């Protein structure tokens, strides 16, 4: 078995106390929520914090207030809680689908929404033991100079692999960040940075306390995830789409987000704009698909072949938009995602 390095473990009772500890300890301290990402990383010596500040004893971080006009989700809500809660299923199905497809049931029992948003970026040259990384003389993401995916790249190309990130972005989420210096609110899209190493704009002393969603009334949303197996696997490509329709099926507002195709979830703005004031007829979908798929430039650092992942991107955008339109996509879902998750509701 791989062993954890030694560390101090702190269990504050309030967000303010947690922020105080982070402030005092400096960047040697890290937040731990479910630990399902951080602890495996620590075993591989990707992160070796001296102090872990646990959020699990803080009351008030695990509630969910869902409302048609404005919703607030605590960052310590577990993915299992989201997956089991019918309010999510009916109100924001993209989030529900994304959370239901993360990892395995056991991991979802521990994994939190905040941890999922802040999930470390992933790469085949990085998610390896210390000894393995030594055998390639390390890489740009950690302890080394070269990016082995793109040798001349000035930045790290590790891949954003969060499932709920793209889904929440499609739902227009904002996040609240807490630190000893105060509180700030940013759009989730602004939390991300297209750099595998500095993938969040969050400062090390900041805690994500809540996720806020705007009005959900009239919105439909969906999430498509590419993975090799029906369980366990991180996404190696994903498409989240959400749209608000008029009563006669005309798109009034839309967002499309492509996940796991860069170091951050990519907002397909042009594609979303192309849908506005139109019904999702085949040629409308085709146009948006071309625009969205153009964004995805997968590299050879995840499971599956990169050119094939690119090809699947268009397929998934099409599937997602057809599902938004109301097509029954359950057969496709089972075939390509091995998932029992239902379509949009």
């Amino acid at each position, binding site marked *: *078995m791989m*062993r954890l390095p030694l560390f101090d473990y702190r269990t504050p009772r309030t967000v303010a106390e947690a922020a105080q500890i982070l402030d005092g300890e400096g960047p040697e301290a890290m937040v731990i929520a479910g630990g399902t990402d951080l602890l495996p990383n620590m075993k591989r010596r990707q992160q070796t914090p001296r102090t872990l500040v646990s959020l699990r004893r803080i009351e008030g971080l695990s509630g969910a207030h869902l409302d048609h006009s404005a919703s607030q989700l605590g960052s310590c809500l577990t993915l299992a809680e989201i997956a089991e809660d019918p309010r999510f299923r009916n109100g924001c199905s993209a989030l529900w689908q994304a959370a239901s497809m993360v990892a395995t049931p056991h991991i979802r029992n521990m994994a939190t929404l905040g941890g999922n948003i802040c999930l470390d970026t992933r790469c*085949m040259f990085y998610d390896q033991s210390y*000894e*393995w990384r030594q055998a390639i003389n390390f890489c740009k993401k950690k302890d080394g100079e*070269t990016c082995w995916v793109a040798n001349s790249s000035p930045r790290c190309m590790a891949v954003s692999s969060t499932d709920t990130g793209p889904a929440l972005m499609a739902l227009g989420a904002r996040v609240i960040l807490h630190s000893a210096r105060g509180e700030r609110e940013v759009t989730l899209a602004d939390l991300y940075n297209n750099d595998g190493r500095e993938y969040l704009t969050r400062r090390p002393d900041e805690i994500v306390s809540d996720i806020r969603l705007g009005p959900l009334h009239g919105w439909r949303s969906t999430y498509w995830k590419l993975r090799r*197996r029906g369980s366990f696997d991180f996404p190696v490509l994903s498409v989240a789409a959400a749209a608000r329709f008029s009563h006669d099926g005309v798109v009034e507002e839309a967002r499309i987000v492509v996940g796991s195709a860069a170091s951050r979830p990519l907002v397909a703005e042009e594609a979303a704009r192309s849908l506005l004031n139109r019904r999702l007829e085949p040629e409308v979908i085709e146009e948006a698909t071309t625009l969205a798929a153009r964004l995805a430039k997968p590299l050879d650092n995840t499971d599956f072949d990169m050119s094939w992942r690119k090809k699947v991107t268009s397929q998934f955008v099409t599937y997602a938009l057809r599902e938004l339109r109301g097509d029954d996509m359950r057969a496709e879902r*089972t*075939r*390509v995602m091995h998932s029992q998750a239902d379509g949009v509701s």
Partner: protein
Amino acid sequence: MIGHARRRVDARGKVTGQTIYADDISLPRMAYCKLLRSPHPHARIRSIDTSRALAHPGVYLVLTGKDLPIKYGILPVSQDETPLCVDRVRHVGDPVAAVIAREELTAADALELIEVDYEILPTIADPEEALANPEPRIHDYSEEGNIHKRVAFEFGDVDKGFAEADEIFEDTFFFQGNTHLPMEQHASVAVRDREGKLTLYTSTQTPHYLHRALSKVLEMPAGHIRVVATPCGGGFGGKSDPFNHEFVVSKAALMLGRPVKISLTREEVFYCHRGRHPMLMKFRTGVKKDGTITAMHLQNVIDGGAYGSYGVASTFYGGTLQTTTYHIPKYRYQGARFFTNKPPCGPKRGHGTPQPRFGQEVQIDKIAEKLKIDPAELRLRIAVKPNELTANFLQLGTVGLEQCIRRVVAISGWKDKFRKLPEGRGVGLACSCYLTGAGLSIYWNAMPHSGIQLKLDRSGCVTLFAGTTEIGQGSDDVLAAMVAEVLGIKTFDIRVYSGDTDLGPVDLGSYSSRVTLMAGNAAIQAAERAKAMMAEAVADKLEVPKERLRFADSAVFDAAAPEKRVTFVEAICLAEARFGTIGTVGSYTPPKFPAAKYKGGGVGTSPAYTFSATVVEVDVDTATGLVRVAKLWNTHDLGRALNPVLARGQVEGSIYMGLGEALMEEQDYRRLPSRLSHALVHKFPSMLDYKTITSLDMPEIVTEFIEGPDARGPFGAKECGQGPLLPVMPAVANAIYDAVGVRIDEVPMTPEKIVRALAEKKAGRAPRYGPDHFPEMSWGEPLRVPPPWDGGDGRAINEPPRQPKPSREKEKVLTP
């Protein structure tokens, strides 16, 4: 007992978590060991400085290659490993030094203080590179350059056979390597006991071979070493070699006088490997218009990795069993195994045979299509017959292949589905044959392959001592059931001690599907002997002829007057009073196989052969190439199902493993741009990234046993743990073809490959994905053996003179 579904004897311990695996063992004063492994794929070790590690607080001992210089290897002809590398590392992960410390974390920290000075050597990543670069040699003893071993046989005039053919098919296939992935990672605890002798608790499939290797390397009499094979959390062939860590902890325990434990990480298990050899195969097959095969020529380029392991045997198996499924009158086989700078390959479930079985079964599907014959019908025409003596002189016994095909066709609805399902949906069929125990031991000897001892006493308890290894397959249960059946008692009344070289008689190990047949026959013999003693004593007491006594329901009674009876316990007491303490033995030596007299003819011999047929139905997404296996039907000729639940478990486990290999598993390596790095690393040595299917990806499975007792099997039983895996991969390939009309001549069959083949099809080119070339090489002069129908007597007509007597170092090359 026999033939009824029963709870296995070790079930309770396993489901309640009471079973003690090697990693669960914790002993007073125990120290922990960690191994320093090479970060380089190929390098010379100039020097090792261990002084800083030794000075680290909590460190007891640091060992290097110098401390354990004697070589070992599972096969007598491949003694090419040392517990720690002495002067050369040959793959990333090759162990170089060991630290033994008070805590595991301390040992791990101290590893970083060891300084190794390496001189980097050029690396070889695959057989074609090995052919192009005979130097530097990865091993000096290889046959030529980096060719480890070549085998070449010709049974009959193959060219003449091709001349008689109406059509000749030539196909090239590639089968990627994959690994066993047992749930339990290897772990060992070594103890120096109060007499100064050694006990090693370890997760192994072959305690007897390990016992011999320990004796050699530690230079200790085998009688002073006890190997205890702890209950094993899965082996599949991956725990059949003696491993580095087992020698290291043994040496350390002897030196320190403390128990020493090691638990490998999952990554280290990937470096132990010994999994499926990658094989690049060219099949040339001549057929008549009716499908009859006139000749076959198979060439096999085998990627062996950095050490010999079972590789010489694997090279034979890479072609030996082609003749035991379909009748092939003339056959040429050329196989060559290469050394490469990657963890060594070895035996994985099916050992060396699934790869060529894949090629042959896919090629038959192509032949059937060209000849416009239904693939099931074609196979029925060419299937081997009971008691056939094959072209390479393998003596078959019972053969249920025909029934397997007929039944699988019936239960799968084949006739309504084949070439009739809508686009994207398809069915495929494939068959196979496997052996029930290798006919020869790994080292030459004239002793039994299995032994069993029974002890019965007045308590009523029957104690069974076996050398066999319970690796999850259910061998303890099967042995208990056979003894219980003979003695008329319940398995719960028997206590089984297995896998302990001090307690049980020698058994060669849990490999080659040998235990049920070989140890089973030994167990029956021991039980019959005990029964005879009891019958004699009871006959005196009841005053009935002993022939009339029956043993059933925990009693011994007169068949003519069942009320005349004693209980089983009374029967033991009577026997104990009459004969003294009751203990019996049984042993099993496979029958002589006189047919094959040529050198290498021992490989593939077996007391009995099993047969399987499989139909797979798949759903292929034409846009993405993603495949979902919808349903699978398997029929397996196993002679007799001793415990149908266990047998079904073996079949379903084989199918699970086969589907993983078919669709996704790859033991794959990565090179970095050579101007920047000399790395050659395993791409994903972790359970998350090495993809194998999950329960959610498993289809519904329908299993049917074809039962026809084989006289050589205990109660008629043959194997069922390996054979059913073999047809799965080719059946999937054939089903994909039926679904979307593309040939994937390569395993695994990933969506990327399917999409590429679909694009070829769309462009009007050959609708196929697979290897497009085959290396040119010299295979050497084949051993020419005329087949039985050409008047052959099993001898080669061009055999070079054999060495007179196998010496201890260079004992004969033998089997899996």
